[in-house]
């Protein structure tokens, strides 16, 4: 809770939403487990004794992990990490040959060969527990673009996950310069950044995904993460308050829906031929519209205020009651911590609690049972 009522009307909700994002992101244990498995498999693929070695394999995470929008799996669903294994000097080879090269290397490993599943666009390693790692074989194309094998069609398909990540971070107002660098073989995983250090757009995407998970509750027609991420990134306008950012994004999605003639497309910003909304049809699109309306409704209630208790109910509709209450308690404990280290102030006249200027709180003990 910071600032004044006038300038930051949503300062308290911002703090609460940030607490929510801390709760819904991967636990440190989940993150470390994924990182360790990623490193092991990266080491196996890139090892000098590997048949892949002469193709200078470059292994890096892609998808939500690489753009910092991962959230905890919903109700026992699997949590996955997408990894691109980019080979070089392979663009003249048939797609299936490259796919099989990678499969062959994984089959040489005692453990991986047992838990390997050959998917159409990737090679999946199913670990015990609720975690799998999808390895996408790739060859370089132009710029950040790559091409990936489609196993059923036995052809190369254009893809550009690193261009996408670059675009997303530009939308967040930063550019990760290291994205195009080529030196590292197995690139370090991005840190499991504490939510407080994330950009509002990253947090907003996490919240949209969380409501997607609860709204669709396992329904396979749920909007894909890449679709939500893209719509959110387009609609984001650089707001630094998370609440205001989310409000603007949800409005933007509403305008997108209102302007649509029939079922709209959502082109991949790095490959306009690809439609992220290819799954939308007369049955699934109205469900997305209902989901967007649901976010709008809860967010309206949330922003209306009317007491922390009322706000908590609305937040419960958005992200689930236990997470909402937990966030309010975390924030209260943070306030209590500020009270004990004497950084908490009270704005004269209004009583607004603040870490800015105001009346220092004298020591007191509330009394009575």
């Amino acid at each position, binding site marked *: *809770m910071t600032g004044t*009522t006038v300038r*930051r*009307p*949503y*300062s*308290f*909700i911002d703090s609460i939403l940030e607490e929510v994002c801390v709760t819904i992101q991967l636990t440190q244990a989940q993150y470390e487990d994924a990182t360790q498995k990623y490193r092991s498999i990266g080491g196996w693929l890139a090892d000098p004794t590997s048949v892949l070695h002469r193709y200078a394999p470059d292994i890096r995470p892609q998808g939500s992990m690489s753009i910092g929008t991962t959230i905890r799996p919903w109700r026992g669903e699997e949590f996955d990490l997408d990894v691109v294994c980019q080979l070089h000097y392979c663009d003249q080879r048939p797609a299936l040959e490259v796919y099989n090269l990678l499969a062959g290397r994984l089959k040489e490993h005692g453990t991986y060969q047992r838990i390997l599943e050959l998917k159409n666009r990737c090679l999946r390693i199913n670990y015990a527990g609720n975690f799998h790692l999808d390895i996408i074989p790739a060859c370089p194309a132009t710029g950040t673009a790559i091409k990936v094998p489609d196993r059923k069609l036995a052809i190369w398909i254009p893809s550009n996950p690193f261009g996408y990540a670059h675009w997303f971070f530009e939308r967040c107002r930063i550019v990760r310069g290291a994205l195009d660098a080529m030196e590292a073989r197995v690139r370090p995983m991005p840190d499991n950044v504490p939510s407080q250090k994330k950009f509002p757009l990253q947090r907003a995407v996490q919240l949209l995904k969380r409501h997607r998970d609860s709204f669709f509750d396992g329904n396979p027609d749920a909007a894909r993460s890449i679709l939500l991420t893209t719509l959110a990134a387009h609609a984001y306008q650089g707001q630094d308050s998370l609440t205001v950012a989310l409000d603007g994004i949800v409005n933007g999605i509403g305008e997108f829906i209102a302007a649509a003639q029939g079922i709209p497309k959502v082109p991949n910003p790095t490959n306009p031929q690809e439609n992220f909304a290819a799954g939308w049809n007369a049955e699934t699109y109205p469900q997305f519209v209902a989901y967007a309306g649901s976010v709008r409704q809860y967010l309206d209630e949330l922003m209306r*205020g*009317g*007491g*922390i*208790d009322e*706000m*908590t*109910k609305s937040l419960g509709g958005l992200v689930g009651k236990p997470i909402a*209450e937990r966030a*309010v*308690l975390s924030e*209260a*404990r943070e*306030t*209590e911590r500020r*009270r004990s280290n004497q950084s*908490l102030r*009270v704005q*004269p*006249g*209004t*009583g*607004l*609690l603040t870490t800015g200027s105001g*009346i*220092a*709180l*004298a*020591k*007191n*003990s*509330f*009394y*009575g*049972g």
Partner: protein
Amino acid sequence: MTQRRHTLSIRDQGAWMRQHHPSFLTRVTNRELRSVGSLQPTPTSRAYSVVIYYEAGHRPKAFVRNLRGRADGDRIPHIYAPDQPCLFYPQGTDWRPDMKIATTIVPWLSLWLYYYEVWLATGSWEGGGIAHEPKREDADVPNS
């Protein structure tokens, strides 16, 4: 500043209230202070109508309109009466008559309102405090 240990007069208390909280309506007589205002601990919170009452020789009291219990029937923690929060430990040294009401009672009341709303939302009191003893704690404070 030299340490101030002497009891502040009702008129001094009133003057500090007006200086710190000009939005409050503060009235003083020789014997008592009564200050009415509104407190909102966070921008998301409701604004509460509050009354601070102070009678020479007694402890200050704070009253809040429209407090309510939880839907599950739990009673509000840390209150003397349904409209009267307990802001400090009366047997201790949290508040002494040489302290300004404007910079103690009023901020404590706002903090109490924050924890009250958190309690309404979660059922958990996060503001700490000391439980009432069985004996009547405010025996020396006459009813106002």
